[in-house]
């Protein structure tokens, strides 16, 4: 008889990282089942961003294994890892970091292109519509408000229907009202695109919306 198990969308085993300055971090193991939105909690400097970069395939750990959506990330050749990241991992930062020389629509087009997908303008319109940005499609980032930029960054993160949405301190400099609306947006979009949301934050306001948490520095 087979045991009915669900493959976790994120799995970290014995992961350790040593900074160039010499300081080293060993992370507690982590397993996130699909759809279980998870917070990465910890104080500033505790290594939350480092952990997010490791599980996004941006920073190779010195030790341990990282599996995302069933794929051992650091067993992949560099180019395949880049393509995998583009296809299956959506990244959102505290700042929107849209490419300034491109319009909002073009920012979404390069997200499709770099991930190796064909440019799909219908999909772009669909996502922009969900995020109420259709009329801003041909605007450059410099013409958008901060809230619109944040929504555009989320649109770019979900455009390729990623398995996980990774957000690094998305509410750090926002007031309560905006924090609530950004969280609402992230959760809605994650549900909409069947993605698992992983949010690194030291913002206590976020804890009320996402139940599962991974505490930095504590072995789970």
């Amino acid at each position, binding site marked *: 008889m087979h045991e009915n198990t669900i493959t976790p969308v994120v799995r970290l085993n014995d992961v350790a990282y040593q900074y160039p300055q010499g300081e080293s971090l060993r992370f507690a193991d982590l397993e996130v089942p699909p759809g279980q939105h998870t917070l990465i909690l910890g104080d500033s400097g505790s290594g939350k961003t480092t952990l997010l970069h490791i599980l996004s395939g941006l920073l190779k750990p010195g030790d341990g294994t990282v599996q995302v959506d069933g794929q051992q990330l650091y067993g992949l050749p560099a180019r395949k890892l880049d393509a995998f990241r583009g296809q299956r991992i959506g990244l959102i930062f505290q700042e929107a970091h849209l490419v300034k020389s491109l319009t909002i629509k073009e920012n979404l087009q*390069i997200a499709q292109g*770099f991930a190796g997908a064909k440019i799909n303008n219908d999909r772009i319109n669909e996502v922009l519509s969900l995020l109420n940005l259709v009329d801003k499609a041909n605007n450059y980032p410099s013409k958008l408000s901060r809230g619109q930029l944040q929504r555009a960054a989320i649109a770019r993160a979900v455009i390729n229907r990623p398995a996980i949405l990774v957000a690094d301190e998305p509410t750090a400099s926002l007031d309560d009202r905006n924090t609530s609306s950004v969280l609402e947006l992230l959760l809605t979009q994650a549900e909409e695109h069947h993605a698992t949301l992983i949010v690194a934050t030291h913002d206590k306001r976020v804890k009320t919306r996402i139940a599962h948490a991974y505490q930095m520095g504590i072995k789970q």
Partner: protein
Amino acid sequence: MNILQIAWKSMRQNPATSVLGILLTAFGTGILCVLLLTSRQIEEQLDNNSRGIDLVVGAKGSPIQLILSSIYHMDNPTGNISLREAQTLAANPMVKLAVPLSLGDNYKGHRIVGTDSTFLQLYNLALAEGRIWQRDFEAVIGAEVARKHGLSVGDKIYGAHGLSSEGHTHSEHPYTITGIFEPVHNVADRLILANLASVWRMHGDNDDDHDHEHGEDDHDLSGVEEHEHHHGEQHDHDHSHEEPQLVKSIMGDIGTGEREITSMLIQYRNPAAIGMFPRLVNQSTAMQAASPAIESARLFALLGIGIDSLQVLAYVIMLMAALSVFISLYNALKSRKYDLAIMRTLGASQGKLFGIVIAEGILLTFVGAILGIVIGHVALYLISASTGGATTLLETLVLLPQEAWLVLIGVSIGFVSAIIPAIKAYKTSISQTLSGN
């Protein structure tokens, strides 16, 4: 969006530095383009004008001056030679064609050349309208002379002494234009041709019998035919027919008792003459033989010194363009490091970032090189128009295959300038950049 589109958009993001790089490349390429086109035109003109002429025989002096005055019609002649001596030389079996030239006057800067119809044969001249001269003071003009001065058949023109239109005007003897040649795109387009006797008479040969005794052909076409085809008895007959005339110099040496011409253009019957005939002229006559091939090569080599200096200037400008492109790309990296890191998070490989920066450098210099070629052609047209040249707008639009090399040089400069910034982009650490370290 492909790499080129992203690079193009990025270029537009920094218009000031991009425009500087483009303009510097354009100026460098423009100068090289003008040099390329002008040296080709000069070479072509030198070649076109001296095609079919194996030797020029004239008075002793500078061989380059003899070539310049007799083929390119750009300088004063070295002096005169005896017609009798020239005819003896023309009768030599090594000579296929001998074209006599008598120079001395001009019409608004265009040489009036006394000659015979061998000239038409040498330059493959065909009439566009009218007829060849049949008597003294009738002239046929080149296509450029007609176009530039709006002259047509039946018009009368007055020659002025010397090479400049400011010389003494011969108001007593107007030339009547009887024909206009088809354009041949060489010096003949800018000349006015008449028979030898017209030039002699203009400069003091007042032998009124001359016209009556010789009739039309004696002054012109028959003489030619005989120079060319009848080196034997018939030639001698012509000489004896002309020699008794009252002979006067066309260059002011009136009354010495011998007719003179300025020079003679020679076409050999066979290549064996190349080594022998010039020596024969230089050693056994009072005349000088100058080879257009040798003197034109010397002339082009002299011009080449100036062209080389300008080329160095153009390369210095291109080097500045390379530096400008390098600095603009390198500086832009600082402000674009987040853009590049974000592209990596979206799935762009390191190679793709390298490609984007290289494409930007290439695009900058490619646009500059194309603009430079346009500037070069327009400049050439403007130079030609301001100096009264015959180059038409259409001719300046013709692209040379070598211009592709200019674009390639520009693109290579862009590539080389972008390598270091591209390597820096390639090595960008996404994690460090996004963490703000």
